[in-house]
């Protein structure tokens, strides 16, 4: 528990908590009884308690005990629960008392890195690497953390050196492999980065961040050649982790794959099937009131978030808000036309702009 401080009016203190004969605010007996009450209440927590009476008020402050030499056994759970504000002072005390404490160096370095104090992080982690020389697992972890801190500070040279050292120490350290993969991708060495991601996945096949990174790097390396594998990997991410930042990124990337797919067969021309679907969508939405239109659009947009297989003629989905069955291309056209109706200046990113313009022209001709 963190320290706490508060002030109460003597008159508002719950006198029923005090022994009879000491319940009158302002008296010595009252002050003594209130002090006893707080001392008993915080006794189980240790630490330092201060109860001061001034101008009719009770000022209470409680601080947890300053650790003499906090044990890592007590700090570990705080770190696991991400209670960093509680863990940090304990680690700092530990390091002051034992300047070469390997876990204190490592954990304080990681905390500093997470909090953006990167110079401090790198100094601590370099010390942790040296101190952990006799323990290859701990040293590998320190190297990985040092690599990440260096990467955050855009020092790719130390980052690469540290991550490679970590992999030398522990060739199956999935986090080190993944981090080195990311570093290589950032540096433009896509094939080497992909190789590291594959090694990381061989060790930790359920690591969704690596799965996503691999898909992204594959598409960047050669979209056409790796499209199927990347799409399969992204689908794995979305299925395993349907919500949140990672799946949103995976969905966006699948959207961009779908957009390129659309142009794959006829890069120059207009896809007549998409024109027909856009025309159908224009006619459908025109016949709807705003409420029904919004209901349909939000349903198809939510469905589209999962990714659409635009070039799969066999796909067939049903909607709650519209009868019949719908191919993914038809759904993409519904989304594009709906978005244009709502926000004419925005683009859906699905790559159906040309077909939509043609459908709009035909719709205008038909309407006239």
């Amino acid at each position, binding site marked *: 528990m963190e320290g706490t401080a508060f002030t109460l009016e003597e008159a508002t203190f719950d006198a029923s908590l005090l022994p009879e004969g000491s319940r009158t605010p302002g008296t010595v007996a009252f002050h003594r009884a209130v002090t006893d009450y707080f001392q008993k209440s915080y006794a189980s927590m240790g630490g330092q308690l201060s109860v001061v009476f001034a101008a009719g*008020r009770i000022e*209470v402050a409680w601080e947890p005990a300053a650790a003499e030499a906090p044990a890592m056994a007590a700090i570990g759970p705080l770190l696991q*629960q991400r209670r960093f504000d509680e863990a940090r002072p304990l680690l700092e005390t530990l390091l002051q008392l034992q300047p070469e404490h390997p876990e204190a160096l490592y954990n304080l370095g990681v905390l500093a890195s997470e909090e953006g104090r990167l110079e401090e992080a790198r100094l601590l982690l370099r010390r942790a690497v040296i101190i952990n020389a006799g323990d290859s697992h701990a040293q590998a972890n320190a190297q990985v953390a040092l690599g990440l801190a260096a990467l955050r500070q855009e020092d790719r040279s130390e980052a690469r050196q540290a991550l490679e050292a970590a992999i030398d120490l522990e060739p199956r350290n999935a986090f080190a492999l993944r981090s080195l993969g990311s570093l290589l991708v950032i540096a433009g060495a896509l094939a080497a980065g992909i190789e590291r991601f594959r090694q990381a996945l061989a060790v930790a096949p359920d690591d969704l961040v690596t799965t996503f990174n691999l898909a992204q790097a594959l598409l960047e390396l050669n979209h056409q050649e790796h499209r199927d594998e990347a799409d399969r990997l992204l689908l794995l991410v979305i299925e395993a982790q349907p*919500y*949140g930042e990672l799946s949103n990124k995976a969905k966006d990337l699948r959207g961009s794959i779908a957009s390129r797919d659309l142009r794959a067969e006829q890069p120059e021309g207009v896809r007549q099937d998409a024109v027909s679907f856009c025309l159908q969508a224009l006619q459908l939405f025109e016949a709807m009131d705003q409420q029904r239109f919004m209901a349909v659009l939000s349903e198809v947009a*939510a469905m589209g978030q999962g990714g659409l297989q635009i070039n799969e003629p066999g796909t067939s989905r049903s909607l709650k808000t519209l009868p019949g069955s719908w191919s993914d291309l038809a759904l993409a056209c519904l989304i594009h036309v709906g978005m244009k109706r709502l926000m004419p200046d925005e683009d859906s990113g699905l790559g159906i702009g040309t077909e939509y313009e043609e459908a709009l022209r035909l719709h205008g001709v038909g309407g006239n």
Partner: protein
Amino acid sequence: MPAHALLPAVNRLLQQVEEASGLPVAVAQQSDLENLATLRPATPERQAHLIAYRDADEASSYHVAFEAALLLRIVQVPAEQRVNLNEKREAREKVISQVEKLVKGSLSLALARKAGLRFYDGLMVQLRSTGPGLWADRWLFEQVPELRGLQAAVLQSQVQQNVPCLNAEVDKMGPADVVKASRAMNAAYAFQTAELVGIPPLAIPYQAAGFEDLARELIAITRAEPTTADPDREIVDGWAEKLGLSRWYVWKTP
């Protein structure tokens, strides 16, 4: 580079909400959010629920789980019975005029009115959210034990942030009945947190200030078996009765 993912237990909970409501749940990080997390249940115009959270850190898993737990209750209320808590003009004006009197001479009338409005609105938000929130915290403690570590950190931090509401200066700034009701709700939060995380001293400030009995009555209301289709409304009405706020708001269909 993606850095953050919701914990698996939270994903399971979100799937549970989707199954119960038959509608998708969208979860998005929004760094300009005023609160830690917000919830926008689906409407006929928007056929998806939206949970937004502010910080891309691990604690956001708990904030999302908390909103999902509330959503799970909301979607089980039949659509035609869903209602929103709305202000009652007379109550609002009464608070504003009390604040105007309290700060007369030190603030302009316009600022005093604004401050009064903030007190009233703040209390109504607290009344609408704290009771159902206590239910959600306890439900998550029992049903999703994987989150207990995060929960302990989030709840303790919230209790610590609330403690200054007891300071005597607050009495000079706000109307007595608003301040008392707000403190009582914070007390309920502190007593339940003390129980869930096993640290009784968390509630000591509120016990010393004489809020224990009222806090325990409020907690009991959140744990009572619901008798209507809208348990959150029951909790809010029950709390309002205990806090003397029954005439401060009205329920209206959206």
